[in-house]
Every structure is written in structure tokens, then in C-alpha cells.
């Protein structure tokens, strides 16, 4: 049953010679092609893989990589027309490490253009559909990576997470989505969206698999100055540690049922009920779980703060996309005209709007009030959470206030309550906190996810706690039921 198999199970099959890496690749490749038209997970599907036998748990096991990781000799588009023909000449550190571990690349996955979006609908090769319900989005920006794991094409897929780009789609796709501490994994070769918020993150179908990937990818990289010195640990070793007496908190202003009692959003209420049921299960596991109150003004500031910082950094990070030294050449008589034309044609309108917003925010006359104030709030929020982490080991919250939205869903749902529940994951990016989403229930036949965020550098404990909680959710190793297809 390849589609359901975890990394550990595939490892065992390989080690026992019940299967071969070639056979695994063939299955993954076939599934990738089978599902491509319907779900559109991939920009590029690899048909001729390179195999390397390595002494690693990942050796011989297929995976997918978001198409914003630089892969030498393999088209890398960031799902944008401005990079539609770009073939990198260098490997991202993540890809290099996976290659060295013998991991087998199945394809490069679709994202929201330049990773700026949360719907999986803005990539230049079309929308990505949710395997649990084709009429719904899977969320983004790591949409194709999420879909490829939810479809069972690969047991894990690499994405990137700047605001919630892995942890939100994980919730919508019934997956585990883990973003380790900022600096735990090198960003070298990850196309920058917002450098101070960008994290390498990944989808798996269980927490242990996330630990395995972290163990392979983590470590200091001289090419990325923000990377941490290696802590010399294998997180897989401590994944089953006892969690008795570990303290979790949730934020009252975000998930107290009282705030939403007048809401007619049934899904939201069900999400919250199930969340509070899960908290009880956590308590019975030995966790202490407490409610904490945080200034609502700060929480409401998360979204605009995220918008200001990410758009500002993105405007600058994408200023290299001019069609001069790479990318499609624009038309025109002067060099300015050809740059102008390349950018006008190369970016979708959404991206342009974000860039203008970012540029406005950075203008001298607005910088103090917009950009710097956002950076100030960022500190206030991070300081508040860090202070709470002195007492608590983790923050537990629903990853979203609902299930994966329909493609035609309007965005008029924006109440401030909704805002808090939908946008708090960015706190993990503000402070670089390790943060993991895992499935904990079904609402209207769609998966919902819970998120656990921990102290900076305490990835080990976050994985450990998530692994424990996973044991009581009843939703470990799920994949979407897609017809009768199997290989």
C-alpha cells in the first residue's frame, strides 16, 4: 500500500528488499502523472531520476520539492511567468542535503506565485485542488507539496513557510506540517519571499517522519548566516520521551468558545469544540493545559504586521527579476523598457499589488509609521510569547477556524474574530519559533489541524510533544480517499 506508507515503513521495505528504490520511484512517478491533470501538484515531474545509495533513512525514498528551491539543471519557476524558463546553475542546500541522503526527487511542486499567497490558486500553471474535495483549495503557498503528500504520491514533500505556507495547507490537507526554528535549516537556494520570516518547512503524514527529515536537513550552513550551530542531536531519538508535566497554553482571545457563541459559522464552532476535546485528551496524556489572556490589540496586529513586513521585504527580494541576466527578456528599445516589459508581463496582478504595498510601506515618508511600527509590534508580540514560554513549553491553537475553503468562497468572511483564528500562525514566523500542525479531526468530511508552537531552538521538545498528542488524535497517517487508485 505505497500511498499510505510512511517513511519508516518504506525504509523497512527497502531494507528487507521487499521493494527497490526504482520500484518506489516508478510508483510515485505513475501516481504523479495520474493525479496531475486533476490536482495539479507539479510544475515539473521527473521521469529520469538519479539514484544514489546512501546511509540515510531517506535513501531511496521518493519526495517532492516546492518549485522555489533552486535545483541545478532542473527548471525552477516559483510558479511565476517571470521565471517560467529559468534553469538554475546551483543547488539549494536543502536539495543538496537530500541528494546526499539518497532521497529521490519525484517532482517540483506548484506554489502560489513567488510563494506570496495562501490559496494555491495563483501559480502560473494553474490552481491546485484539495485531494479531500476537488471543489476546495488546499491552501498555500506550498499547495502542490501539500497535495502530493495528501494524494499519497510521496510520503513527504518540502515546502516553505513565511506566514503559514506549510502549516495552514497541512491543516487543510490532513497532514503534519512542521516548520523548525528559524536558522535550524539553511535557506540558501530557497527563493526569498520575506527573508526575516522565510522558513524551510515540510509535509509528512506523521510527526516521526517530520523528525527524520529535520535530522537530515538541519545544521549550520556557511552559505546562510542566520543558521544555528548544529546541536548535535537526533530528534528522532527523543521523539518518544515522556511529556508528564509539560505545560501547554492556549490564547483565550483566539479560541474561547464564548467569543463565538453568536456565530452562525457551524464549522468554526465544531472546530473549537473538537479543539477543546483535544485539550482534554492532552490533559489525560499528562500535559498541563492552561488558558492565557493576551492583549487583543496585539493579536489583531498580527495580520497587518505580517502584511507590512512581508510585502516590504518581498518588494526588495524580487527586484532581481528583470529579465536581464535570467528570465524571459522583455521587449523595448531601451534597457529600462525591456526591464519594465519583463516585469509587467512576468508578474500577476496580485503580486504587483503586493509589491506596490511593500514599496509604499518602505517609502521614507511612510517608513516610520508603517514599516518600523510593524517591526515594533513584531517585537512586542514575540516578547510576549517568549515571556509565556518561560512558564509554558508550548502554545496550542487550532491552525485555522474552519476547513479548506471552496474555490468560489468570497473573502467577505473577514470578521476580526475570524482574523485572529486565521492569522495567528504568523507568530511562529515573527519569532522564528518551531511550529507544527497535525490533523486532529474531521469536520464536514474535511480534515482540521491543530498547531503546537514552542520555544526558539526547542524543536526537539515540539516534535516530542506533537508526537504524543498525535497518539490520541486518531488521525495519524491519513491520506485523502481518491477513487480506487492505488499502486
Amino acid at each position, binding site marked *: 500500500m505505497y500511498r499510505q506508507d510512511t517513511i519508516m515503513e518504506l525504509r523497512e521495505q527497502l531494507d528487507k528488499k521487499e521493494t527497490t528504490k526504482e520500484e518506489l520511484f516508478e510508483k510515485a512517478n505513475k501516481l504523479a502523472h495520474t493525479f496531475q491533470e486533476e490536482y495539479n501538484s507539479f510544475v515539473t515531474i521527473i521521469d529520469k531520476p538519479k539514484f544514489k545509495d546512501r546511509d540515510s533513512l531517506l535513501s531511496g525514498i521518493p519526495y517532492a520539492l516546492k518549485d522555489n528551491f533552486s535545483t541545478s539543471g532542473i527548471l525552477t519557476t516559483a510558479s511565476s511567468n517571470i521565471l517560467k524558463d529559468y534553469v538554475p546553475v546551483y543547488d539549494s542546500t536543502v536539495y543538496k542535503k537530500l541528494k546526499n541522503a539518497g532521497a529521490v526527487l519525484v517532482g517540483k511542486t506548484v506554489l502560489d506565485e513567488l510563494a506570496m499567497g495562501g490559496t494555491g490558486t495563483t501559480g502560473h500553471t494553474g490552481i491546485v485542488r484539495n485531494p479531500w474535495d476537488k471543489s476546495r483549495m488546499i491552501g498555500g503557498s506550498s499547495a502542490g507539496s501539500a497535495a502530493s503528500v495528501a494524494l499519497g504520491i510521496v510520503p513527504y514533500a518540502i515546502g516553505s513557510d513565511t506566514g503559514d505556507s506549510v502549516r495552514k495547507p497541512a491543516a487543510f490537507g490532513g497532514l503534519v506540517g512542521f516548520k523548525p526554528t528559524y536558522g535550524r535549516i539553511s535557506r540558501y537556494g530557497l527563493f526569498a519571499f520575506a527573508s526575516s520570516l522565510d522558513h524551510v518547512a515540510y509535509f509528512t503524514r506523521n510527526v516521526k517522519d517530520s523528525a527524520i527529515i529535520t535530522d537530515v536537513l538541519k545544521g549550520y550552513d556557511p552559505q546562510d548566516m542566520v543558521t544555528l550551530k548544529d546541536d548535535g542531536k537526533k530528534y528522532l531519538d527523543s521523539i518518544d520521551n515522556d511529556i508528564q508535566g509539560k505545560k501547554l497554553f492556549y490564547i483565550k482571545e483566539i479560541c474561547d468558545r464564548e467569543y463565538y457563541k453568536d456565530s452562525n459559522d457551524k464549522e468554526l464552532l465544531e472546530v473549537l469544540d473538537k479543539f477543546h476535546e483535544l485539550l482534554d485528551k492532552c490533559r489525560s496524556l499528562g500535559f498541563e493545559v492552561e488558558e492565557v489572556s493576551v492583549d487583543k490589540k496585539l493579536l489583531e496586529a498580527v495580520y497587518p504586521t505580517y502584511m*507590512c513586513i512581508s510585502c516590504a521585504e518581498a518588494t526588495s527580494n524580487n527586484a532581481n527579476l528583470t529579465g536581464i541576466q535570467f528570465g524571459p527578456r522583455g521587449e523595448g528599445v531601451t534597457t529600462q523598457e525591456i526591464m519594465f516589459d519583463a516585469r509587467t508581463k512576468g508578474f500577476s496582478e496580485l503580486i504587483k499589488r503586493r509589491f506596490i504595498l511593500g514599496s509604499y510601506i518602505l517609502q521614507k515618508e511612510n517608513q516610520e509609521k508603517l514599516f518600523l511600527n510593524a517591526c515594533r509590534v513584531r517585537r512586542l508580540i514575540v516578547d510576549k510569547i517568549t515571556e509565556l514560554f518561560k512558564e509554558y513549553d508550548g502554545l496550542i491553537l487550532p491552525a485555522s477556524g474552519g476547513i479548506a475553503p471552496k474555490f468560489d468562497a468570497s473573502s467577505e468572511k473577514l470578521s476580526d474574530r475570524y482574523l485572529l483564528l486565521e492569522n495567528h500562525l504568523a507568530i511562529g514566523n515573527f519569532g522564528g519559533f518551531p511550529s507544527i500542525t497535525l490533523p486532529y479531526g474531521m469536520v464536514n468530511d474535511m480534515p482540521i489541524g491543530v498547531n503546537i508552537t514552542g520555544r526558539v531552538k526547542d524543536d526537539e521538545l515540539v516534535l516530542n510533544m506533537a508526537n504524543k498528542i498525535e497518539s490520541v488524535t486518531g488521525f495519524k497517517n491519513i491520506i485523502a480517499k481518491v477513487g480506487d487508485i492505488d499502486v
Partner: protein
Amino acid sequence: MIDKELLKKYARLLMFEMKEEEYTTLQEEFDVILKQMDLIGNIQNISEVEPMTFPYKNTDVVLREDEVGDYLTVDEVLSNAKYQVNDQVKVPRVVEEDI
């Protein structure tokens, strides 16, 4: 509401243009975000907080030793450039006045 002409100027400075109706959408978006940022401005003593650039204080930072490491071959440098002459990237004649 933010001036549409101003937004057009920003677009030009960012080296692209948008469809006319997109500026209207953008005006609305600006309206939302600027209102929210106004609220942030009201947070007590906000001006006394030091702006945060890095997610946390990283004490592992080391500057690079001044040594030659990996770099690209000439072919790699030019491999994605559409127009080239004499192993250099070719563009229309750049006159400083035009930019």
C-alpha cells in the same frame, strides 16, 4: 482613499504597470491595511519599542573568513542570459539619462 496617481507612480518606480481596474482593487486594499496600521500606531508607547529585524538574537553568527570558495564558470554565469556578446550580457545601450 489613497490617490490612484500616486499608486501609478509607485508602479512605475517598481518597473511595471497594472491594468486600470487593479488600481481600484489596490486602493481598497490600501484602505484596509492603512486603517489597521493606524490601530497599531495607537498601541501604547509603541514609539519607544526598538524595531525588530531578526526573529531572535542569534549568538552563533560568524563573519566569513576572507577566502575564495565556490563560484561559477563563465558558462554558468551566462547560461540563463538571453542575449550575449563576447561572454557578456547584452542589453540595449544604457544611457544614464534613461534610468
